[in-house]
């Protein structure tokens, strides 16, 4: 089946519905699927449950979907940079589930790998452990965390080919590879679509089997915290 689409709008067509679960790649504003987010906003779908490490800023990234009140619940590790998020959360309009960052990454990885849950030391003795199964291994206590499977993953890569093979660039990789695996469907937006065979097979980060649709996007790549030497 042909995987290449010509726009984000076309790529999401037929894959979205109200109340769906979405996994999004990105860390802060780095490596976020900018165009898929914008297309989801335009589509007007509602009550989204989004697993994403952060929630963007007020006017960029997932912040755009918060602005238009399309998000019912966020699953994130850190949401500090978004005042609209805080307003909606404090007024009870938005649900929030904090996950430790490594737990969130592992929930996506496990979800993509068909593993329903895993034990981790992270969060033992904290509010995160409340109501979760505790189990000792070799004298250490661990808690059971459940994996995350999304209806749709949206990821951003540097280069991709028509098979959906992806390569990420520098720290823009972050959550993208694990988010790509945990979606029942996955849409990848890339800076450059290259001919099949032009990516060295040894250098592919996400094999095309995980990617259903791919399109070339124009990316603003906004910098959240410009810090210079001196």
């Amino acid at each position, binding site marked *: 089946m042909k995987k290449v689409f010509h726009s984000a709008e076309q790529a999401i067509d037929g894959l979205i519905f109200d109340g769906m679960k979405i996994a999004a790649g990105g860390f802060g504003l780095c490596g976020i699927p900018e165009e898929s987010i914008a297309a989801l906003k335009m589509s007007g779908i509602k009550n989204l449950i989004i697993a994403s490490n952060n929630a963007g800023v007020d006017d960029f990234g997932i912040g755009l979907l918060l602005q238009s009140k399309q998000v019912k619940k966020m699953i994130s*590790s850190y949401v500090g940079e978004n005042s609209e998020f805080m307003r909606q959360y404090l007024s009870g309009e938005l649900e929030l589930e904090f996950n*430790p*960052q490594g737990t969130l990454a592992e929930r996506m990885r496990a979800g993509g790998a068909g593993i329903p849950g895993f034990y981790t030391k992270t969060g033992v003795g904290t509010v995160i452990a409340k109501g979760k199964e505790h189990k000792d291994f070799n004298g250490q206590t661990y808690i059971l965390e459940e994996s995350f499977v999304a209806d749709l993953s949206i990821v951003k890569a540097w280069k991709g080919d028509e098979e959906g093979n992806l390569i990420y660039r520098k*720290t823009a990789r972050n959550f*993208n590879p694990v988010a790509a695996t945990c979606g029942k469907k996955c849409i990848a937006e890339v800076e450059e679509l290259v001919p099949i065979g032009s990516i060295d097979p040894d250098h592919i980060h996400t094999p095309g089997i995980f990617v259903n649709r791919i399109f070339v996007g124009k990316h603003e790549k906004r910098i959240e915290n410009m810090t210079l030497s001196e």
Partner: protein
Amino acid sequence: MWDRNQMAARAAKEIKNGMYVNLGIGIPTLVSNFISNDINITLQSENGMLGMGPFPTKENVDPDLINAGKQTITELGKTSYFSSADSFAMIRGGHIDMAILGAMEVSEKGDLANWMIPGKLVKGMGGAMDLVSGVKRVIVIMDHTNKNGESKFLKECSLPLTGKNVVNSVITNLGMFEIAEKGVKVLEIADGSTIDDIKKSTEAHIIN
């Protein structure tokens, strides 16, 4: 009394040749300014980078290259990049030698609170819970007392925990401390401070 830079410099002395180290946001970030040129260490950034370089010049800014504080950063010859799952495999799998973090409260048993004040805006724990539960040695840098002069070094933390029994060492403006079996051991006293100053400002049980 040590200032921010002196606390960071003291922490830097704990970093030994060959170590893989994760530095938290705030004073811990300053630690990298005091690492001796004679040793070779590797800084990990939990968003997916080993071998973090200095901040860039204006010409070298790359939006695809940031640290966990979302600051623009540079790479080194030895740098590697990886996914968040691999990054936390390093952290949770015990492959990182040391994490240096800030704190709101530390208890004499090594409990750490640094992510949440009930009733105030909560930003999230980020990678802190993973770091304190997985990294081999956890060093906290914090002021010894809060703005009201109350000890932040306590018998029990009052704030929600980031981790239980996870802190190994604490560096404050008054000195350096180790969380030992039966309480807190004073390892070093800051210039101009005395053991009596420390005892007066510390709720935790001091065993010296």
